[in-house]
């Protein structure tokens, strides 16, 4: 393939990455923004979403779409409930102390991951996509008599990949509307701005925290259900997305949702594109060092505002 079509294909793959990454990172970001804790187990909530999707779709027979839609509804709820339980039994008891929370969520990470290993097993298991039509894509070429359209061999995507991008956009818009246009969203933002003040105004901060932790985990599970027909479910699949969403949240500015989405697009796209043309290991080395240096020299993130 020539460079143009190849680059186009890489950007399409990158866009699918970016869509899922944006969801995952927004989940991490609202938890950090509102609760001021770093949830290291976020990647495992993502993994659980994928495993539950596999479990549901293998239980439900018939057309793959039935199982998939059920998984799309049930997985976020189940994972959200697990997260709420973790908040209730662990995080609340250590008073959301930032450092102890990290240690506890590392513990949670191992518990979830290893329990999955014991029950689900070490294999990667596929989930069938609800629809998966291969779409050939055209490319334009400049010839002596203007532009002409042709269909390069190998330049194609699937309808499902395009649907993932669309679904991510819809979910992000819905989340934004939820945070800015509803009473619960208002209460969450009030808690984020000033926890003590929210308490004095009778906001049940404990319940808000539990809800936010559940919501963050639920979004991660949703992202996993969307990606699992492309990627397969595996008990170690949470590691890379966790690292990438950390990177996104830090680059985008801790706790800033628009910043997080822009950074997810930037990182997801460039990770996809760099991985196609160069070694993925080099891409990851650059990304991790970038995060370290951003935190050292610009702790408010590239797009975040400096807090006085």
């Amino acid at each position, binding site marked *: 393939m020539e460079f143009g079509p190849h680059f186009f294909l890489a950007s399409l793959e990158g866009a699918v990455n970016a869509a899922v990454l944006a969801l995952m990172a927004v989940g991490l970001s609202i938890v950090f923004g509102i609760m001021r804790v*770093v949830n290291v187990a976020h990647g495992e909530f993502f993994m659980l979403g994928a495993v539950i999707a596999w479990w549901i779709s293998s239980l439900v027979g018939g057309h793959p779409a039935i199982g998939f839609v059920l998984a799309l509804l049930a997985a976020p709820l189940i994972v959200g409930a697990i997260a709420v339980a973790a908040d209730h039994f*662990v995080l609340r*008891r*250590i008073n959301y102390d*930032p*450092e*102890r929370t*990290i*240690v*506890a969520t*590392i*513990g*949670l*990470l*191992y*518990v*979830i*991951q*290893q*329990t999955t*290993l*014991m029950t689900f097993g*070490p294999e990667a298991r596929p989930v069938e996509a609800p629809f998966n039509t291969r779409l050939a894509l055209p490319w334009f070429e400049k010839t002596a008599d203007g532009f002409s359209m042709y269909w390069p061999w190998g330049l194609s995507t699937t309808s499902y990949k395009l649907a993932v991008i669309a679904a991510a956009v819809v979910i992000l818009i819905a989340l934004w509307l939820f945070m800015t246009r509803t009473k619960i969203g208002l209460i969450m933002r009030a808690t984020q701005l000033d926890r003590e003040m929210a308490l004095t105004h009778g906001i049940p901060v404990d319940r808000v925290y539990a809800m936010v932790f559940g919501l963050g985990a639920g979004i991660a599970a949703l992202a996993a259900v969307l990606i699992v027909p492309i990627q397969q479910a595996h008990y170690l699949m949470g590691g890379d997305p966790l*690292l990438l969403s*950390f990177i996104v949240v*830090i680059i985008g500015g801790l706790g800033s949702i628009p910043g997080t989405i822009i950074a997810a697009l930037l990182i997801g796209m460039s990770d996809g594109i760099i991985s196609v043309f160069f*070694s993925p*290991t*080099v891409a*990851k*080395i650059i990304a*991790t*060092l970038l*995060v*370290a240096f951003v*935190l*050292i*020299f610009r*702790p408010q993130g590239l797009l975040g505002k400096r807090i006085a």
Partner: protein
Amino acid sequence: MKDQLRTSLFHLLIIGLMAGLYFTLPEYHSGVLARAMVLAVYAMGYNLLFGYTGLLSLGHALFFATGMYGLGLAMQHLDVGASTGIVFGLIAALVISTVIGFLALRTTGVAFMIVTLMFAQAGYLIILWMGEYTRGDEGFAIQASERVLAGIDLSQPDNRYFAALVLFGISLLLIGWVVRSGFGKTLVAIRENEERARMLGYNVHRHKWVAVIISGVLSGAAGAAYALLFGYVGATFATVQYSIFPLLYVLLGGAGTTLGPLVGTVFMYYLIDLSSQVTSAYLLIAGVALILLTLFAPQGIIGELRKRVFPWLP
């Protein structure tokens, strides 16, 4: 001074006890203890930073792996002997911890944790990327014939045990002395109240930096010793998991106590050893232990003992 002397005598007693264990325990257990003592040195390095200075690093595997690869790569590719290899490992750990300390200490709290995590992850990826020399995930073995230090064959179980004990003993006496010195007490002051320590005129940044360097070099020494005594160098030792282990050992044994790292390492080692005979998901134990410790015993075994029974424990 009396305090210093009493601590050192107590530590000598512990070292003697560990030597005695070799002659009383069956061979399997002395093999486990040799490994645990080397890892305890790693945990002691970690403890100086976490337990005494209050800096929680999530990237100590970088220092451990630096010592390990410093020795391993030098012996493998430069054809040097074991003693020169150790020097290479220690110098590599010194350089890396000086640089990482300088950079990472510009941040505090959660940012410090993430920065150290990211540097360690970059280190791990670099090991994979330079697979031509490091053989990546697979790693490489150091031949038994090369593992000879001052004429002593370290691949023999008895020599290996006492080599581990020597390293452990030196580290324990060194740490015991450091934490009872003025420098160590300043570190505790920084942990308890950084602003006040600064106001009293201590150079907080320099103290923390030196703590990172001592901690990094001890971790590197443990890494180099691990490679030399057990003959294997691999990228597994640079993963996040190996950054979590010393945290776990120290939390379990007791942060800010000199014996906590040893107790935590031995305890966890046996726990994982026993559970891995039952299930391959042995890390589940580590996870449950971390959660229970943060919830119920943030002081660890030795910490709780010191609080309740023996207030004189160092």
